[in-house]
C-alpha cells in the first residue's frame, strides 16, 4: 500500500499540523511458535491537538502498536520488518537505542494500563517524579527540580502536592497513582502522548474523572494523543478519530462520530452490536461467531473473512485495499458498498 491510496487527511479539521506519521509499520515477534505478525502494515497520521483512538479486542496488536511507537517492544523477540514512524524529522524505527532514549519521555511518552506496575514501590512519588525531570536535564538545581515536581502534580489536580511528593505508591489510591503516572508522562510537555487502556484498572467514577483530566491536559498543552482501548465508551468520550484494529491491521479508520453512525466494516458493526449499550434492553445481543485468528497463522485474504457473514470468494483470496467511505473515513472491506445496514 502506498501513501497515495489513503485519502488526504484534512489537517484543518483538527486544527493542527501532522506531528506523527506512521507509514506501513510492520513489527513481528519471532517466537518459538513462529512469527507473530503483531503489527502488520499500519499507516496513520496524527495531528497536533487531536486524539486518535485505537480500538480492538485482546490480541489484536493494539498494545504492540503502542509499544512499537515508543520502541519498547519485548526484546529480543520483536523485529521491525518495515515501515517508518516519523516524529519531528526523525524516523523512530531507524534511531539507535541511545538516540531513542533522548526522545522517549521527552517528545513521545506513554501512560500504561496499571499504575501499580508503572511506579516503583520502594521510592517516593517525589523521588520518581524528580528522576523523570532530571533524566533529560530539565532543571538546573535541586530546588528547581523539586518545584517542577510539585508543579507537575498540580497540573494533574493532585490535592496537597507537597505532602503527596513524600508518599510511597502504596499510600495512594489507584486513581491518584494514575494521575501521578500522567504527571510523569507530561513533565516535558511531549508532542505525542500514548495512553494504553488508561482507565481499565480504575472504578467507573474515577474513570470518568481521569478521562476528563486527559482532555483538560490536551486542551492546555495541545499534545496529540493516542488512546488505546477495548471500550467504545472510552473512545466516544475522548477521541476525535478512531481506528479499529483486527489481527494486526486497521480494518476501519475515520472521524469518531462517522464510525459510530455508519460503521463500514463488518467487524466494527459486530463489535458495536455485541454490546448491551448499543442494542437496547429489548433486543438480543449479536455475538461474532468464532475467535480471532492466531497471529502466527493468518487466514488468506481478508483476516476477518472466516468470521464474516458477508464474505464472498474475493474476501478469501486477496487482502482488501483501503476504500474511501467519505472524506476522512476509510475501510478495508471488499463489501463496503453493499453493507446491509449502511445508510447510503
Amino acid at each position, binding site marked *: 500500500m502506498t501513501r497515495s491510496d489513503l485519502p488526504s487527511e484534512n489537517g484543518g479539521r483538527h486544527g493542527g499540523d501532522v506531528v506523527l506519521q506512521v507509514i506501513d509499520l510492520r513489527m513481528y515477534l519471532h517466537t518459538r511458535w513462529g512469527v507473530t505478525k503483531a503489527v502488520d502494515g499500519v499507516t496513520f497520521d496524527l495531528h497536533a491537538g487531536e486524539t486518535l483512538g485505537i480500538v480492538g*479486542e*485482546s490480541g489484536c496488536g493494539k498494545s504492540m502498536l503502542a509499544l512499537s511507537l515508543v520502541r519498547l517492544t519485548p526484546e529480543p523477540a520483536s523485529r521491525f520488518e518495515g515501515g517508518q514512524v516519523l516524529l519531528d524529522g526523525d524516523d523512530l524505527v531507524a534511531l539507535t537505542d541511545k538516540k531513542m532514549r533522548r526522545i522517549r519521555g521527552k517528545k513521545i511518552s506513554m501512560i500504561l494500563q496499571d499504575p501499580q506496575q508503572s511506579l516503583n514501590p520502594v521510592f517516593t512519588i517525589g523521588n520518581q517524579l524528580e528522576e523523570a525531570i532530571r533524566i533529560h536535564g530539565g532543571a538546573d538545581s535541586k530546588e528547581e527540580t523539586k518545584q517542577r515536581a510539585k508543579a507537575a502534580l498540580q497540573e494533574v489536580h493532585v490535592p496537597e502536592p507537597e505532602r503527596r511528593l513524600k508518599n510511597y505508591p502504596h499510600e495512594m*489510591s489507584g*486513581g*491518584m497513582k494514575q494521575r501521578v503516572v500522567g504527571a510523569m508522562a507530561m513533565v516535558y510537555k511531549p508532542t505525542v502522548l500514548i495512553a494504553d487502556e488508561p482507565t481499565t484498572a480504575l*472504578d*467507573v*467514577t*474515577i*474513570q*470518568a*474523572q481521569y*478521562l*476528563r483530566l486527559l482532555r483538560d491536559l490536551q486542551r492546555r498543552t495541545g499534545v496529540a494523543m493516542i488512546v488505546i482501548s*477495548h*471500550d467504545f*465508551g*472510552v473512545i*466516544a*468520550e475522548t*477521541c476525535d478519530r478512531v481506528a479499529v484494529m483486527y489481527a494486526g491491521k486497521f480494518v476501519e479508520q475515520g472521524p*469518531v*462520530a462517522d464510525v*459510530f*453512525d455508519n460503521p463500514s466494516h463488518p467487524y466494527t458493526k*459486530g*463489535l458495536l*452490536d*455485541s*454490546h*448491551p*449499550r*448499543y*442494542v437496547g*434492553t429489548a433486543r*438480543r*445481543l*449479536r*455475538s*461474532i461467531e468464532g*475467535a480471532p485468528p492466531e497471529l502466527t497463522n493468518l487466514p488468506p485474504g481478508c483476516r476477518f473473512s472466516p468470521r464474516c457473514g458477508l464474505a464472498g470468494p474475493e474476501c478469501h483470496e486477496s487482502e482488501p485495499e483501503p476504500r474511501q467511505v467519505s472524506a476522512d473515513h476509510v475501510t478495508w472491506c471488499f463489501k463496503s458498498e453493499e453493507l446491509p445496514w449502511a445508510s447510503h
Partner: protein
Amino acid sequence: MGQPLIEVEGLRKLFPIKGGPLNARTLGHVRAIDGVSFTIDTGETFALVGESGCGKTTTARTILRLYTPDEGRVLLEGRDVHALTGDDLKAFRLAVQAVFQDPWASLNPRMRAGTLVAEALVANQRLPKAEVKARVAALLERMGFPAWKADLFPYEFSGGQRQRIALASALITGPKLIVLDEPVSALDLSVQAQVINLLKDIQEESQTTFLLIAHDLDTVRYVADRVGVMYLGQLVEETDTEELFENPKHPYTQALLNSRLPLHPKDRREELQVMGEAPSPMNPPAGCRFRTRCPFAMDVCTEVPARVQIAEGHSVACHLYSE
C-alpha cells in the same frame, strides 16, 4: 414475581486488621458489609452494583456460605443457611451455585471439562455413573459443545468457552440460585454477548434465580430485573432496573449513572460532577457514609439515614427523602 427465595437480613461482616508482634493484635476492622438487607424473588435477576470495595462480593460470598456473618442472617426459602447441617447442607449445596469472574482461575486445570461439570453433582448426591454422564453430556450440548469436548482440559478452551463450562458446572445440580460474580468482565466484547445471551436463555428455560454482581451498568441494565446499589458496605438504594436508570434517587446512584461513558461522541458531557474518591472502609464517615462526597450534604447527614420506601418497590437510604 413470586415468593422470596433469598432473604438477607441486617447482614454484617467485619474483617480484622492484624498487626503488632506475631500479628497477634487486632488493630481495627474493615467493615466490609454493615447492615445489608434485601430479598430476591424466585425467578428474578437481582443485581448488586457499586465501586470496588463496596462489599458486593462479600455479600455474595456470605450468601454462598463462604463467609460466616458477624451479625444478621441469610434465609433460603425461610431457613437460615448458616445454621444448616447434614443432609440439609447437602441440599443447600445443590440449590445454590456460583460462577466466578475469572474462568482461568475458577476451573481446575488438571480436570477434564466433563469431570469439572459433574463435580458438584458427584460430591453431593449419589447417582448412577451413567446418569451423571448423560446429564453432563446433555448440559454441555445445551452450552453448545459437542460431546467429545468433555474429555478436553480447560487450557484447550477459549475464555468464553471456559465461562460456559463454569456455567454448566453450576447448572448441573439444577440450582434454585446462581450467584454470578462479574461473569463477563474478564471476557472480550464479542464473547461477552454470547455468555449474556446464554444466561438470559437459561433463566427463561429453567426459572433459575440469579444474583448478579457487576460493575458494568450497561450489562446490569440488560440482564437484571431489580438492582441494589451498594456504597461502603451499605445498600443505599434498591428498585426495579428501569426505575433505577430512569429515576435514580440517591445522590450516589445519580453520580454513578452520571459517570457512565457516553454511548456516542455527541453525548459527551462538558459538565461532570467531580466527586473525589471513596473513603476507606476501615474508618467510614459517621452518619451517612456518602456525605463526604455528596453535593447535597446537610447537617442532618451526620446521623444515619433510615431506609425509606418512596414508591412501590423503591427504597432509598438518604435524608433528602426522610420526610
